[in-house]
């Protein structure tokens, strides 16, 4: 059965290692923070200038000067640092953030991603997404495998304007976990109860299935 948003987030969180610095985009990626194993610690980077983002504040902790990149009120965890936007993106662009997790409209088998602009619709801006995909060491895209009309979002070539090129290595969808390399999507894991055939059918790009594909543990 296809994964829920929470299950996708759960599977994302399994990628993190103890001591990982992680930037989580808005939506499903943000949920991943809730599923980090108790055995490890990760530190959340928020690109508006906060490393060590903590929990949402209690009512009396709310502070207009303490927000995250989603413009939500947050707290800083113990050992956090706060800095300018230039420093924040020096970290990101310079490859110091271990994981970036973000959503996308489309990903293709070259590792290109389209996530910010649909021609004909009003463009609101890319925010920090282009810097994040250009800079992070490991980028995980979370999205549904196909759109609501059943059209695959895993393509041979992205059709929408790109956010970044040759940058995505891992995709976690509601159906599967895939790795991108050598100009193909390599199927690594299936969502519990989802068949390889279903994944194949919903993957428009070149899908490589080698050996038995295990089910995810979520």
């Amino acid at each position, binding site marked *: 059965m296809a994964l829920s948003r929470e299950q996708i987030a759960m599977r994302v969180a399994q990628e993190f290692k103890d001591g990982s610095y992680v930037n989580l985009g808005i939506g499903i990626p943000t949920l991943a923070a809730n599923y980090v194993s108790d055995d490890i610690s990760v530190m959340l980077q928020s690109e508006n200038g906060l490393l060590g983002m903590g929990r*949402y504040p209690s009512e009396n902790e709310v502070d207009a000067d303490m927000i995250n990149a989603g413009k939500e*009120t947050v707290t800083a965890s113990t050992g956090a640092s706060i800095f300018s*936007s230039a420093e924040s993106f020096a970290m990101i662009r310079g490859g110091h953030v271990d994981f970036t997790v973000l959503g996308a409209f489309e990903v293709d088998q070259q590792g290109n991603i389209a996530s910010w602009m649909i021609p004909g619709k009003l463009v609101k801006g*890319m925010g920090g997404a282009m810097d994040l995909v250009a800079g992070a060491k490991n980028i995980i895209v979370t999205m549904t495998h196909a759109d609501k009309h059943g059209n695959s979002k895993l393509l041979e070539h992205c059709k929408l304007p790109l956010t*970044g090129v040759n940058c995505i290595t891992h995709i976690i969808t509601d159906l599967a976990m895939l790795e991108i390399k050598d100009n193909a999507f390599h199927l690594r894991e299936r969502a519990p109860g989802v068949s390889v055939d279903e994944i194949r059918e919903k993957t428009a790009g070149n899908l490589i299935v080698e050996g038995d594909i295990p089910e995810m543990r979520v």
Partner: protein
Amino acid sequence: MAGFDKVVSSYEEAMAGLKNDMTIIAGGFGLCGIPEGLIAQIKKMGVSGLTVVSNNCGVDGFGLGILLEDKQIRKMVASYVGENALFEKQLLNGELEVELTPQGTLAEKMRAGGAGIPAFFTATGYGTPVGEGKEVREFNGRPYIMEESITGDFAIVKAYKADRYGNCIYRHTAQNFNPMAATAGKITVVEVEEIVEPGEIPPSQIHTPGIYVDRVIQGTFEKRIERKVTRSA
């Protein structure tokens, strides 16, 4: 040290010299860390044809958004402008031009402008609409695009405290774009919550040295919160 006393006593003085068609660089991220009183003064002055460089353009009725009401902004350079219905309307009408710039590139363009670096290379935006028309060059086998720096006729900045010499510190994530904006204005105006005496901020804790700052004004701030989220008790 009278020559270093940057404190002015009115918003008129703070923004004196601002004219139509000038470029203003503004600190702030969303509504966090914005120079509320300086923005209000720009509205009051009624100058128009402005180019405004800021990560966002406020919201309807608050922050830089109020400069849209009388169509004072001709061009906006920003990374994200999705919080603002009036912005959308003026954009679709062709009354407003927007240059969408990746957030990190925008921060670096301001920093570079203040630091005498006219251009730099970044991988951000390569192969995307942002890279179109920009020079591409490979370094160590990876393609990068050239981005030019930004400076402004004015920079408007919100700090937590400043001393009379213009040395500033920022509070929490209200720092954001403010330190870079401060370096990139021909005239840099800082609106603060508290003016302190020189020496009160330890030298190594100063975020923005006074050399970048031309004018300091004591402000009052509403500090509107864009998305208040609390944890359940």
